[in-house]
Structure formats: structure tokens, C-alpha cells
């Protein structure tokens, strides 16, 4: 086992000493008013696979960016092998033996594998010797860790899984001891993910330390030795994986919130409003993100789509909202809607009675430089009710209407002339929700209705959604917050990897069962 790694460095097997290879002490980082990391301390033993799990926005990526020299922490220190180490830039991180595999790969698409590996770690001013050396090392690494990639292939011709291997090779070529992988399986097929785990196991065997950032419970359970849970910028727990279970982790991750039970009567569903059959969507790289989704939503009911982010919910909303194309059959009030042709656009959808509160309100739902009243018209600016005459928009009327809406939805400050970017997240969301709900649509698509929204606003938004349901409208709700799904939905469908894993009735299921479905584990929990 005492085999030298390709760099001729002595590999250390199981942790011989008690000095952790990586230690964080009291790391804090704020972006303006947002505390992304709060007093984070962590110890990772040499040769361990350590998982960091948490929801989107829990602060995992910020923490890793600090480790890789992208951000400077406001407070705290980093110790590598027991020594305090300053990491002001990526160069220092590399020197400290840290390798990073980003969620979005940092590869040059029209370079070969070899060129990407060598970039920034060249031997001298001439390229030839560097490439020759890298070729040799790569062959070695390939055998050692099952990291096979054609060194002369262009990145753009490689599958995502292979591109990821190149990222790992880059780190190993730079003699990384600590390898950080940020959501590495998000873009992989199950087979590719299995291969990745084999690679990680090999790396561990050779004495490398691996930090795996993910929100997938299954992965944590499968390969980590220890696991830390992050929630709202804080590291809440660190436990041995063997001593925990997915249910407990799911609970720690989501957190025991004050249950925001929404007062609502049992649903009285009517006719089917939305009917989706075998809906498929490919992203711009040709990867299928929706793999044949079928579902229906009836009038007067809320269908909640639960699932970990990135399992196709976004694509589902986009294609239904008319700004992504797909194949399959979708009927709205019995009438087929255009999924990829000339009428696959947001205006047509709105005319068909579909309103949409998008998941990402800042990027899609609002124009941040527009005022509140302009944002209230946004998407409905062609509505005859908003026109003074054939040519001129009724800005004054819109201003009045917005003021009234802001009153009804308690948007603060109630200034219709203020730019959207100057409102808090909750108030921004209220503007979007007010705009979409008050159109009185037949179908409301609503994604992450309360992400980044304060408690008071959450309750209010939930009430509005239920009110719309009680008015006999159909609602398709997408949220990664299980709590929200459970308290609002009349039916819950769980999405995983572009498919619907199953459907449950909220009263007849619990977070644990749904959590397992969300993690891609089928069947009832024990």
C-alpha cells in the first residue's frame, strides 16, 4: 500500500496522526447584509471522504470559494496540516495542496485534455516538454485511479463525465492532497456517478482527502466517512456517516422550522386544467433534463412538485411558461399548447390563462432596473387594459393600480416608482406574486415562492396561493422546501433526475418518505 503517487510524493494511508489535514476556525463571510458563512469551524482527517450537505444557499459554495482563494473571509483562519495558511488567491490554494472541481467546469472548450491539464502548471516557456511530461503523468494517473481520458481529445467533444475527470486530473497533476468536489454528480448520469465514486474511493485509498459538497443524501450515505450539515450559513452538525441515517440528515438539512401550517379547507378539485403527457426537454448541450414527465392539475387544487434542485423542476416550469422548448403533449383546458413552434412564447401562454411566478425572480421575474409599476406591467404590457389608446400605455393608470396592489400585498415601501432592485427579497417576491395572482389565471405556475423571503411574507404569500386555489384555479407549485410543499399541496409529486418518482397525498406521507423519494430511493421507507 505504500506506493508512491505519480508525483513521487509519499502517500499516507489511514490517518496516522491526530493532526487534521484541513481545519477551519471561525470562518465568517458576509456579502452586504447577507451572512453567507457564520463562524464555521471544521476538521477533516487525512484520507477521509468528508461530505458537506445542505440546501441551496446554505453557504457551501461560499465556504469552498474561500478555501480556493476566490473570496477573502471576514474572520477566521484556515489550517492545512496544522499550519495556519493564508489563501489570497487560487495560486496559493494550489500551492497549499488544494484542488477544486467546480460545479461548472473551468475548462477551455476548444483545448485538448492535455492542454487543459497543463494550463497554468507548465514546466517552462516552451510547451513541448510540458505536454510530454503531462502525457506521461496522465497515463500513470489513469491506471492508478481509473481516470481514463484520451489526452488528445478536445474538451467540447467529451461527455460531461469525462470533462469532470479532466478537472480531477488537473487537480491531481498539481499534486493536490485535498480534493474538493462541488455538487459533482449534478450533471452526471447514474452510471457516470458510480464511476466517479469508484475514482474517489481509489483516491482515498492513495491517501488523498476528499471533500464532497452535495445535497444528495444517497451520495453522502454511500461514500463519505464523516458528514457536516450546513444550514443558513452555519455548520450545524458534524457526525460520522456510519452513526447517522438519511432521515436524520434530511431533518438536519431542512431543519425543524416553525411549521407554517396554512389554514385551508380540503380541496374540491374540478375539471382537469393542465394535462402533461410524456414531456421531454433537452438543454442546450443536448442533455435530456426532462425524461418523459406526465402529470395533471385540476381546477381548485395545488399540485406540489417536491425534489432536490436541479432534477428537472426548472425545465418543467420553463417549458410550461413558454420560454424553453420541449416535446410531448401538453393540454391547457383541453386545448393542446405549442411546445416548440411559433406560439411557444410567454405572451401566448399568458393569453391561454397561464401565469408564472418563476423560480429566479431576480433574473427572470423582475427587471431589476425597472420601477415597481413597470414590473407590475411586465409580461402583461400588451394587455388592452393597460393602454390609454392604440399607441400610448396608461402609465398613470398603472401607477395607480400598482399602488393599490402594493397596498393589498403590503409591499414595503409602498412606492410604485422605486426600482425593483431597491426592495428586499420578500417585497420583490410580493410584487411578482401580486402581478401574477391578480391576473386571475386559470393556471398558476409558481416556483420557489418563498425562497429568500422573510417569515411574515411567507405566510402572506401562502395565503394568497390558497385563496387562488379556493377561487377554483389550478396551481402547480415547485419548491425545494418540503415543509412548504407539505403544508400547501393537495397532492405531491416528487421529481428526481427528470422523472416523476411518485405521487403522494400530504396527509398520508411524511418528510422522511418524501426525502427518500427525492434522493432517488424508490419505495417506502422502513
Amino acid at each position, binding site marked *: 500500500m505504500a506506493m508512491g503517487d505519480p508525483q513521487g510524493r509519499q502517500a499516507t494511508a489511514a490517518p496516522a496522526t491526530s493532526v487534521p489535514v484541513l481545519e477551519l476556525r471561525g470562518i465568517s463571510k458576509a456579502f452586504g447584509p447577507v451572512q453567507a458563512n457564520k463562524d464555521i469551524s471544521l476538521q477533516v482527517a487525512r484520507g477521509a471522504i468528508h461530505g458537506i450537505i445542505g440546501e441551496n444557499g446554505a453557504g457551501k459554495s461560499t465556504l469552498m470559494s474561500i478555501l480556493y482563494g*476566490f473570496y477573502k473571509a471576514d474572520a477566521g483562519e484556515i489550517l492545512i496540516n496544522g499550519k495556519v495558511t493564508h489563501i489570497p*488567491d487560487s*495560486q496559493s490554494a494550489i500551492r497549499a495542496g488544494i484542488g477544486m472541481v467546480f460545479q461548472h467546469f*473551468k*475548462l477551455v*472548450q476548444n483545448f485538448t485534455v492535455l492542454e487543459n491539464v497543463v494550463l497554468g*502548471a*507548465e514546466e517552462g516557456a516552451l*510547451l513541448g516538454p510540458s505536454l510530454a511530461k503531462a502525457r506521461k503523468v496522465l497515463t500513470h494517473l489513469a491506471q492508478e485511479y481509473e481516470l481514463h481520458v484520451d489526452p488528445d481529445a478536445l474538451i467540447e467533444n467529451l461527455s460531461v463525465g469525462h470533462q469532470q475527470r479532466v478537472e480531477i486530473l488537473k487537480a491531481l497533476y498539481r499534486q493536490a492532497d485535498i480534493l474538493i468536489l462541488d455538487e459533482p454528480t449534478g450533471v452526471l448520469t447514474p452510471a457516470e456517478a458510480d464511476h466517479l465514486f469508484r475514482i474517489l474511493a481509489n483516491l482515498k485509498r492513495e491517501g488523498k482527502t476528499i471533500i464532497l459538497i452535495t445535497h444528495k443524501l444517497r451520495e453522502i450515505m454511500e461514500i463519505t466517512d464523516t458528514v457536516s450539515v450546513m444550514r443558513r450559513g452555519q455548520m450545524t452538525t458534524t457526525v460520522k456517516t456510519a452513526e447517522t441515517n438519511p432521515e436524520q440528515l434530511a431533518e438536519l438539512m431542512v431543519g425543524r422550522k416553525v411549521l407554517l401550517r396554512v389554514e385551508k379547507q380540503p380541496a374540491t378539485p374540478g375539471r382537469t386544467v393542465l394535462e402533461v403527457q410524456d414531456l421531454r426537454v433537452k438543454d442546450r448541450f443536448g442533455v435530456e433534463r426532462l425524461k418523459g414527465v406526465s402529470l395533471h392539475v385540476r381546477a381548485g387544487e395545488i399540485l406540489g412538485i417536491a425534489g432536490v434542485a436541479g432534477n428537472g423542476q426548472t425545465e418543467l416550469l420553463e417549458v410550461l411558461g413558454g420560454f424553453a422548448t420541449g416535446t410531448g403533449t401538453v393540454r391547457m383546458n383541453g386545448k393542446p399548447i405549442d411546445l416548440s413552434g411559433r406560439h411557444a412564447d410567454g405572451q401566448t401562454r399568458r393569453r391561454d390563462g397561464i401565469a408564472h411566478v418563476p423560480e429566479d425572480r431576480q433574473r427572470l421575474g423582475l427587471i431589476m432596473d425597472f420601477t415597481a409599476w413597470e414590473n407590475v406591467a411586465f409580461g402583461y404590457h400588451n394587455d388592452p387594459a393597460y393602454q390609454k389608446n392604440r399607441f400610448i400605455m396608461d402609465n398613470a393608470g398603472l401607477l395607480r393600480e400598482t399602488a393599490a396592489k402594493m397596498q393589498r400585498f403590503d409591499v414595503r415601501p409602498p412606492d410604485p416608482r422605486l426600482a425593483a432592485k431597491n426592495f428586499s427579497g420578500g417585497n420583490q417576491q410580493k410584487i411578482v406574486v401580486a402581478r401574477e395572482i391578480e391576473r386571475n389565471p386559470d393556471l398558476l405556475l409558481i416556483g420557489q415562492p418563498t425562497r429568500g423571503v422573510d417569515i411574515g411574507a411567507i405566510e402572506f404569500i401562502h395565503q394568497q396561493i390558497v385563496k387562488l386555489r379556493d377561487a377554483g384555479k389550478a396551481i402547480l407549485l415547485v419548491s425545494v422546501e418540503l415543509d412548504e410543499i407539505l403544508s400547501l399541496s393537495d397532492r405531491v409529486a416528487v421529481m428526481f433526475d427528470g422523472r416523476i418518482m411518485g405521487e403522494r397525498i400530504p396527509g398520508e406521507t411524511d418528510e422522511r418518505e418524501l426525502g427518500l423519494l427525492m434522493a432517488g430511493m424508490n419505495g417506502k421507507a422502513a
Partner: protein
Amino acid sequence: MSFESYVSILDSTVRLGTPLLLACLAGLFSERSGVFDIGLEGKMLVAAFLSAAVAYTTGSAWLGLLAGIAGSLVFSAIHGLASITFRGNQLISGVAINMLASGITVLVGQNWFHQGGGTPALSGAARFRDMTLPFANELRDVPFLGPIYAELISGHSVLVYLAFLLVPATWWVLYRTRFGLRLRAVGENPAAVDTAGVSVVALRYAALAIAGVLCGIAGSYLSTALAAGFGREMTAGRGYIALAALIFAKWRPWQALGSTMFFGFLAAVSIRYPTIDLGVLVIPNEFMDNLPYILTVVVLAGFVGKAIPPRAGGEPYVKER
């Protein structure tokens, strides 16, 4: 048409293509690093003016060349400040640089020489003279190859030979050196370069500096080799043609040689034959003059192969997670 006239057209192709080639290579360096450079025209113009002015004053074409390069470098630095350091709009910066060059050359030129913005005519050592390669005169009478050697290959200024040598040199730097690898990478994906621990800013400034030097040589060639002195607006859109040639060449050095010489050929033909009468069709020389621009639009439209610029071109780099 006689053999001699073919040779002579090709000879002027080389003369007229050389400044395009130099400017095109300049653009290649900066655009490959991810900085759009529509200021080639302005940098050339400034260099042309300063070269002629200094060459006239000192009587040395070489000192003129240095001054031209220095002037062009200053303009490159302004472009770098705007587009790299302050992350401004690279296109607007380029427009400003071209305008600044047009204005300041005349302003200063008028003040120095009082000749309507131009310099007095250069003569003697203040110009780069045509070099006669060994045995050019002896071999002149050899049929076919003789005139080609004596007229076409021999008898150009040193800057022409330099420009041609710069093509393989650029290729070599781009594809065979560490700097070239990093340069190509930073124009495609600066995040990859940054995470690899290499400074994006330094690389881009280096690329702009090289572009500055090359534009400096191009401008200097215009006023101290091709012509004998500086005249107002003497670049006459060559910077834009070089830009067109760069797109035509899809940002590659050997293809840049091809496209600039092709555009040089068009210019040579248009000077020699104001109208081309094909019997059924008369091609006006306005059409010939504008062919480079028209062809570029056709290429950009993707009708004849797709010209894909460096992916990160035009975007200031901002670190992100």
C-alpha cells in the same frame, strides 16, 4: 495581360497587404486574449504620424519606427485601462481611440509642420528603403523565375520581410509556447486561467502590448516605407479591413496571411484597373474596394463557414463562484 503585369500586381499586393497583415496580427493577439480591438485603425494612424514626424526630424526611419511603436503602445494602454482595469465597454473604447487618433494627429501635425496635418515628404534615411536581395539583379533575366525573384520577392522594405516572418512567429508563439497557451485560454475561458492560478489581467495587458507594437510597425510602414511621409487619415480604413481580414481568417495566423494578401490583391487590382470589364458585366472599382467588407459580413452571417470569435471576447472578466 502580360506576365510582367501579373508580377507587378502581385508585387503591389505584397506592398498593400503588408500593413493589413501587421494590423491583423495585432488584432489576433488582442482578440485571442478576449479583448475586442476595433481601435487598430487609430493605433496605426498614431504610429504612422509619429513615425513620419520623428523620422523627418531625426532623419532616421528606425527612430521613427520606435516612436511609432511608442505612440501605438500608449493607445493600447488606454484601451487596456478602459477595457481591462475599469471593465468598460471594449467597443466604445475602440471607437474613442479611433476618433482620438484622427483628431490628435491632425492637431499636433498642424502645429508641428503647418502642412494641413501631414508631415513634409521624407527622403533618404528617413524612409525604409527597398532592399535588394542577393543576386536579384543577376537573376532578373532568367525566364519566369527571374522576374518573380527580382520583382516580387526582392525589392521590399525590411518591414515587409519582418511582417512575413511574423506569421510563423505568431503561429509558433500561439501554439508552441506557454504564453500562447495561456493567451488562447484567456480568450476562451478566463475563469479556467484564473482558477489555474494565472493572472487574467496581466495576460490581457501583455496581449494588448503586443498588439500595440504590431500596430506601431504597421503604421510606421505606411508612412515611412509605403509612402514618403504622413498624410491626414492616411490609414484610410485599413484598420477595419485588417479587422475584417481577422474575422475572415477566423483568428488564425496563416489564414491571416491569406486573407490580408487577398485583400491586398483586391486593392492592387482596383488601383491598376479602375473598372474591370468582363464583357457581359462591368465591375466598378467601388465594388472591388468594398469587397473586403462585404465578404466579412457574408462570413459573419455564417453563410460560408462559421466565424466563431474567441468565446470570452468583449466581456470584461469578473470573478464569480
